[in-house]
């Protein structure tokens, strides 16, 4: 038995290392949904490069309705339950779903806005809408961004930079 002690120690150390390796690979799990950053995208012809959170709130609350040169702002949002919708309500507008609905009913009824933001079922539809509408703006998870849209800086930061506010 004594002869094998050295080998048993080696075996034990090897087991420990293997366990550590396995643990390390498991720890590197996929990012949680809450950590996925959400980008603000517009049509590539839109000259807007940067917006503040206050601007975003005004835009998605229907208080700012025109870009100026590219014309009216066309708002596109995701339907209830989507990550982008959560970010819109919690980070930008600070409303719940019910308050959001009531806000837009009031806005349209008072004549301040002509239509509610169009709720789309998928990020693919959002991309299509952004490409088609010159004045369009939408929120989209960064992994779903494809060519043909422009990402706007928020508070001077793009997705991926530390301190990016929409996640």
């Amino acid at each position, binding site marked *: 038995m004594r002869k094998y002690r050295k080998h048993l120690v080696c075996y034990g150390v090897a087991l420990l290392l293997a366990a550590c390796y396995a643990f390390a690979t498991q720890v590197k799990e996929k990012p949680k949904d809450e950590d996925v950053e959400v980008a603000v995208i517009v049509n590539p012809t839109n000259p807007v*490069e940067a917006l503040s959170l206050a601007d975003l709130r005004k835009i998605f609350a229907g208080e700012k309705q025109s870009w100026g040169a590219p014309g009216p702002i066309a708002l596109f949002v995701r339907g209830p339950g989507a990550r982008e919708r959560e970010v819109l309500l919690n980070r930008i507008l600070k409303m719940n779903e019910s308050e959001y609905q009531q806000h837009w009913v009031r806005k349209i009824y008072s004549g301040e806005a002509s239509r509610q933001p169009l709720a789309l079922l998928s990020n693919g539809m959002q991309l299509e809408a952004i490409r088609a509408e010159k004045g369009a703006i939408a929120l989209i998870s960064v992994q779903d961004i494809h060519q043909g849209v422009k990402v706007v800086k928020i508070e001077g930061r793009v997705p991926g930079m530390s301190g990016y506010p929409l996640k």
Partner: protein
Amino acid sequence: MKRTLTVAVLIAISVGAPRAHSQDSSESAQIKALIQEVNDLKARIAVLEAKQAGTQSSVVSAQASVKTNDDPPAPPQTASGTETTSFGFLRGIKLQGFGSLGYKASDIKVPENSFFGFRPGSMGNFAIGDVDLFVTSALTSKATVLSEIVFTETDSQKFETDIERLLVKYDFNDYFKTSFGRFHTATSYYNSVFHHGRWLQTAVDRPLVVEFADDGGLLPTQEIGVSVTGRIPSGKLGLNYVAQYGSADTIRPQINRPGAIEIDENNGNGVTVGLFAKPDWLPGLDIGGSFYHDRLSPDNQPIHIDQSIGSTHVVYTTPRFEFLNEAFIIQHRVEGGGQTFNTPAFYSLISQKFGRKWRPYVRYQYANASTQSPLFGDVGLRHGPSAGVRFDYNDYLALKIQYNRTLRRQLATINDLALQLAFRF
């Protein structure tokens, strides 16, 4: 040596075995990591594209990139200046309805005029009130049509139809928005924001001073004409303006004389100008005022009256909190050296939503008209509190219960209780 080799093989097998077990999970983790990396790269590419587009259009972006907000709009980039948006997503008619059912009980001894289906002199009766059909449609990306058709119950359970609003709107940009047609005047904040749908307002009814004129209110609430509004470049102060020119035809029933002839004010064309601020530093705050002027030639009175109305408001609203304050001075100056009558009025309403459904509220209102006034002699002094609770069953249906106490000059105080089921559909 042999033993050592055996041990080495054993170690290799021992280490390899758990790795083989964890191989699947580590591979899937690697795949996930790679997918994440691809997604990150996609985002980076999009960002780089954004930057590249920015440098390519440096002239445009230098003017418009970081500003975007409160500077005046840049001129259109298109040579023709026409709308180039495809706008295919946005066309269509949208119809929305509002309605209410109510019950009102009162201890009034000498009957007053009643509205929205309530009967004068009744100690308590049910009524439908207004049924409101609200239609909007986009004509182009900048032009829309808005119409509000209201069916109002009379005290004999008959219904009158009114086109309360019919507007063709054209928004050039945030700084210049035009409307043509029949609109609610900007003589008060309440009149601009709350219309006929009872579901939208917290309380059961409107304060008397801002009640619709054909329901006894004191202001010229409707006009046919042109309205222009927009933002004023003012940074974080968030200044806005409104200007309206149009023809009102205010016909007021006398609120303390049921069955009496209504007063037709025969308004001349009226002008309204207003200024209000919605500062960036406190979203929900709205401070401002307006001034209205027209000339009246009331029926059966051989006089002309210059009517001037000044109003000011301080309002703070969030989805859960509401604090409305508005004050008015309505001046009637009889032309040809006649008397001048000033009617001050105000209301204040505060409400807070608790949980998802309950919203208690308190309101106080005041209006003080001279009994000698050629137009508001029926109003006199009226003031008093209202208190109530609104229960939102869901996003479409609300139940309200409200107690009103109205004190009147030289007349008995009125206590009444109102229940209302307000809904949208």
